[in-house]
């Protein structure tokens, strides 16, 4: 009886293998996705958006939108090998703008992660440290990056460092705050269990606090990448000679409206890609979480 009892429930729930390989499973997921209505709904969503834009600007010519370039103008300019305003998919300058902005965001994001995650962990872990630092942090946090522009220009020389500093700020706040909340969200039972099992304080930090805060940290990093693009544009509109924010601002002053919209759409796409990359990295590092969520979806 004992053997049967011990085996019984196990057998029901047994998952003998670790499941299919990563490549196989992502191919399978892709096929599943194509079979579901989701991609088609997404396409319809985009079509509706473009249609609305087309109708308001080019067909109905509503007064509010009279200055705005229509989708036809933007798209023809975008794919024009010989662009009217000098910028399209064929001009190397376009890629330089993208590269310069992406590089700034990456540097600022990495700096914000390297400082924000340890600071957040400390804030969540040590009450004493939090009492010193957090009030100052909370006072600085509501100051928007734009308000920092003059100070950034005074503090840093050149045009590159002030922009990176401004981009860094908002990311840093998002990362730090989420990491701290992540530590505070950890069920005290996990910490107690670790002490019970003989872990020292340092081991509790590495085995419980860090992995336990990980889901929040990655939520923070996704927000961080998003707000980095936000404040980057603010910085680039003020100074610099390249970058998507600079492109949007100069096209505006030079009345090259289609180029301005190209810059905006590009910003949207690049921003989405970076934030998706962070999400993919998070899922890769937190297999336990991905699998737990997958179980939940199946059940």
């Amino acid at each position, binding site marked *: 009886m004992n053997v049967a009892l*011990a085996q019984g429930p196990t057998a029901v729930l047994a*998952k003998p293998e670790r499941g299919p390989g990563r490549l196989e499973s992502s191919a399978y997921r892709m096929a599943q996705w194509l079979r579901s209505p989701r991609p088609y709904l997404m396409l319809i969503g985009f079509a509706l958006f473009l249609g609305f834009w087309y109708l308001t600007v080019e067909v109905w010519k509503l007064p509010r939108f009279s200055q705005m370039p229509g989708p036809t103008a933007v798209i023809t300019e975008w794919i024009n090998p010989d662009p009217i305003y000098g910028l399209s998919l064929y001009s190397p300058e376009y890629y330089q703008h993208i590269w310069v902005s992406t590089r700034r965001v990456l540097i600022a994001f990495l700096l914000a992660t390297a400082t924000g995650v340890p600071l957040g962990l400390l804030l969540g872990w040590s009450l004493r440290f939090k009492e010193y630092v957090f009030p100052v942090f909370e006072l600085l946090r509501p100051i928007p990056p734009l308000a920092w522009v003059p100070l950034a220009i005074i503090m840093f020389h050149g045009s590159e460092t002030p922009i990176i500093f401004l981009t860094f700020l908002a990311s840093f706040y998002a990362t730090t705050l989420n990491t701290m909340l992540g530590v505070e969200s950890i069920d005290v039972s996990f910490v107690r269990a670790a*002490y019970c*099992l003989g*872990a020292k304080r340092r081991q509790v930090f590495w085995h419980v606090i860090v992995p336990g805060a990980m889901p929040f940290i990655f939520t923070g990093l996704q927000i961080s990448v998003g707000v980095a693009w936000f404040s980057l544009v603010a910085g680039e509109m003020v100074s610099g000679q390249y970058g998507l924010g600079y492109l949007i601002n100069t096209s505006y002053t030079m009345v090259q409206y289609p180029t301005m919209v190209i810059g905006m759409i590009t910003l949207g796409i690049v921003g989405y890609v970076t934030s998706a990359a962070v999400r993919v990295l998070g899922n890769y590092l937190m297999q336990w979480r991905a699998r*737990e969520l997958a*179980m939940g979806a199946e059940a």
Partner: protein
Amino acid sequence: MNYEPPRGSPIADARAPALAAQGGCKGAIRIANVVKIYGSEGAGVRAVDDCTFHVPAGKITVVVGPSGCGKTTLLNAIAGFHSITSGTIHLDDALLCGPGRPKADPGPDRIVVFQNGALFPWKTIVENVAFGPIVQGRLSRKAAFEKARMMLAETGLHNLETNYPGEISSGMRRRVEIARALMNDPKVLLLDEPYRALDSLTKSVMHEALLETFDRNRVTIFFITHDLEEAIFLGHHVVIMTTRPCRPKKILTVDIPHPRDYSVLTAKRFREYLDETVEAVHEEALKAFAAGERER
């Protein structure tokens, strides 16, 4: 309330001089005059009041009381998560906490299995089970994993090794958690209503599995519950607590031989124990209800 302990009962043992460990078993806990007041003295809430009893080594002692009566406070004091206001708690002959030392150090000689489970969700089952010996530096990584695999095989959980806790049922998780505790050869297992969240069918399977584990390891078990049937089915001794402040009201020695299985539940003797105690428990439940104790 003026309960006089009969001779030879655990409560009387606690007042007797330190007992030699029985039959080679270690892990007797003596709780003497323990008081715990939350908040400041005077204005604070008295959770445990002059609590004295004895948890004999190598036996299962079940503490029963209404929700929020302060039994978890007692467990937390033994485990070293909370301080006590006065009194002493000894493990075998060593003082865990008492005068001049309000809080015990948590350690692998007393391992808690938590109400909602505390397997690390970010570690696989085998990593969880191997955790104790690795952080203590008692075994190498390799040896710890080997022992963990053996441990899991013994409980019939070997095919779950590479799963994460989130992927297995809550009943399984409790069994893994007990295996994780036993990896460290603890003197005492402290179980804080571990089966509370389980449905009654799973619960009955878990009870038998726990008794089986106990028969193999003979570790001292300190088990908290509010379920009287569970208490009598599992325990050598059942300590019925008063509602806040918490103090033993009645101590019962269940004279049904181990190993027990579910046929016990219908035995005449079992019913008699229930009859004998149900009134005491109900009385405290009513008091707790009247005091408006919230479900915790």
